[in-house]
């Protein structure tokens, strides 16, 4: 092939290749949120209460066990599921019952939930129950809040810090 033809063809090929490289390195743009939307992340790492209370072992019961297994208190390991809800302007936007992890259901739960919401002034309400022996919310929080477009609002639960925090 004549080089006079070949070189322009090479330039064309390089241009197409680099065009592809450039285009897919940034385009098409990814729309994480629609216009006027914000993101709420609802998250926690928590261990529910024991399903049953510890029971003191009687002498007879202890004697039935091997010597190395004898403990004064019998504490069943199973934990309560953690029930949670999040409402925005009285509309339920997240509801979940997280079962404890582990073969004996004795581990904690981890929640990380992203929820897209419209920006604006809102009233948020959330509650959590981590004890099967108690009916209804154990921890709860509500407040009015102004959420800006593209804001990332984090609602986090930490029992060590007294419950829910919103920031």
């Amino acid at each position, binding site marked *: 092939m004549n080089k006079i033809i070949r070189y322009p063809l*090479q330039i064309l090929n390089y241009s197409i290749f680099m065009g592809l490289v450039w285009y897919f*390195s940034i*385009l098409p743009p990814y729309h994480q949120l629609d216009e006027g939307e914000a993101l709420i992340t609802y998250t926690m790492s928590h261990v529910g209460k024991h399903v049953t209370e510890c029971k003191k072992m009687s002498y007879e019961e202890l004697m039935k066990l091997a010597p190395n297994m004898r403990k004064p208190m019998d504490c069943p390991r199973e934990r309560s599921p953690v029930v949670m809800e999040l409402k925005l302007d009285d509309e339920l936007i997240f509801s979940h019952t997280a079962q404890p992890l582990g073969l004996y259901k004795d581990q904690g739960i981890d929640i990380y939930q992203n929820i897209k919401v419209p920006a604006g002034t809102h009233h948020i309400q959330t509650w959590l129950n981590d004890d099967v022996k108690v009916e209804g919310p154990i921890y709860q929080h509500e407040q009015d809040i102004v959420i800006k477009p593209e804001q990332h609002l984090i609602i986090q639960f930490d029992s060590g810090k007294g419950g829910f925090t919103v920031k």
Partner: protein
Amino acid sequence: MSFINPVKRGYLALETWFNISFGHQWNPLYNLGTLTFFFFWIILISGLYLFIFFDSTLMGAYSSVEYMTNEQWYAAGVMRSLHRYASDAAIITILLHMFREFALDRYRGFRWFSWVTGVPTLWFVVTLGITGYWLVWDELALYVAILSSQLMDGLPLLPGTMSRNFLAEQINDRFFTLMAFLHLLGQPVILVFALWFHVKRLSGVSIMAPRGLAIGTFVALVILSLIAPAVSHDPADVTQTPAILNIDWFYLNIYPLLDYWTAGQVWMLTIGISVFLMLMPWLPKKKQDEVARVFLDHCNGCEQCAKDCPFDAITVQKRTDGARWENEVVVHDNLCASCGICVGSCPSSNPFRHSEQSLITGIDMPNSPINDVRDQVDAEIERVNKSSSDSDNKIIVFGCDNALDFKGLESSNTGIIKYYCVGMIPPTMVEYALKKGADGVFITGCRTGDCYFRHGNQWMDERFDGDRKPILRKRAERARINVFRAVETECKELKAELDRFQQKLSSMQKETESVDSDLVESDIVESNIIESDIVENKNGEA
């Protein structure tokens, strides 16, 4: 013409286009592996330069990258863009490389190892790119960090939720330094090992792209870097979620899936695709002919077959049969591709040996032994001699079984012999065919630069040029040998090339006859002169 599936036909058309544009030597599709290595070199060198100015702290990373991009745009900025675009280009060449091997059915059989090891290698490349995006620590980096953590959280390996660390701003300099270490050293070292495994079963692996292609690609990358320099998003801010992100689809394409699917589902998809890809060589398994066998009685341990084997399937060891030679060769069955190139390398494959008895060579293919090939040559020459007139040119075609379909060339004056690869043809076999009465030898093989068995074309050329043993001796008239290289879609060109060769042989024949008749005429004139002299002398004496 045999059926060619549309994927292969499309791919071959693309290859033809690049052959027109770049020529065989620089065709990017023949150099996808070396081109990818070339991109890695650019990534390495530009990365080292960027590291000089990079501040691997949480607070300093973004500003240091901004400094490189804006203040030192002419050097570090260009380097950053080269780093980014070469990484993206590498993904294209890797995907094309995979597609090529698939389209040409070069992923099954003996090639399973390279295919299977290629899949995790792609994973390592992608994860290396992903950690690179963390280091800029802009909005995109935070997005990648959080979603990568969500993906990790989807694996039942680690307790807790990694993603929350970014929300609680628990990321510190130490973690950031760890990420920098991973990207700069840990992952590249793993990638080097992965690449080593990937090419482990190949011999004579080149990691340097042809100079012209490398220069052209580099210039194109530099121009792209100057026209559209890589830039950052705004600095990472956990309280903000940018509505629009310009994500790099080459590396971050699975992240948007997390908008619709859980991390577990995304893992199932990616792992599922990977496992499927890795199982492809056995879906279905490709049949392979019996592997090469060594015949020690005819092997002098010259090692030429070991040097020529494209898949490192032959090794040399000390002689075990007590013969006077120092070494012998051993074929490793699990590595052998049954290409037969070793048969072409072996000096004992000379068909002039033991002409009255069975020809046994030092290394041979059980399903197509060299003795059978010689018998076929004899039989085909006998057939064309019987079925064609004296004025016809008798041609023997040595055809590569993995290139274009040459069986249609068989005719009253053309005999065909099938080979696994043109590299399997001992040069003496060509000489033998000519000596036995063929007017010409026509060899068909894979396209230049694209031998199915990697080195067959190159070895044949070097043997014919006298640069590689065993050489084609000078007594084999080169003008009577024609080599044609093409792919399955070029059958018309094959026929046309054979016709041209026929014509060339005919004109050579005419020239020879003309020279012969001139010689005869001059002999007659000369003898007439002598006779008249004798008559004159006799008359004079009388």
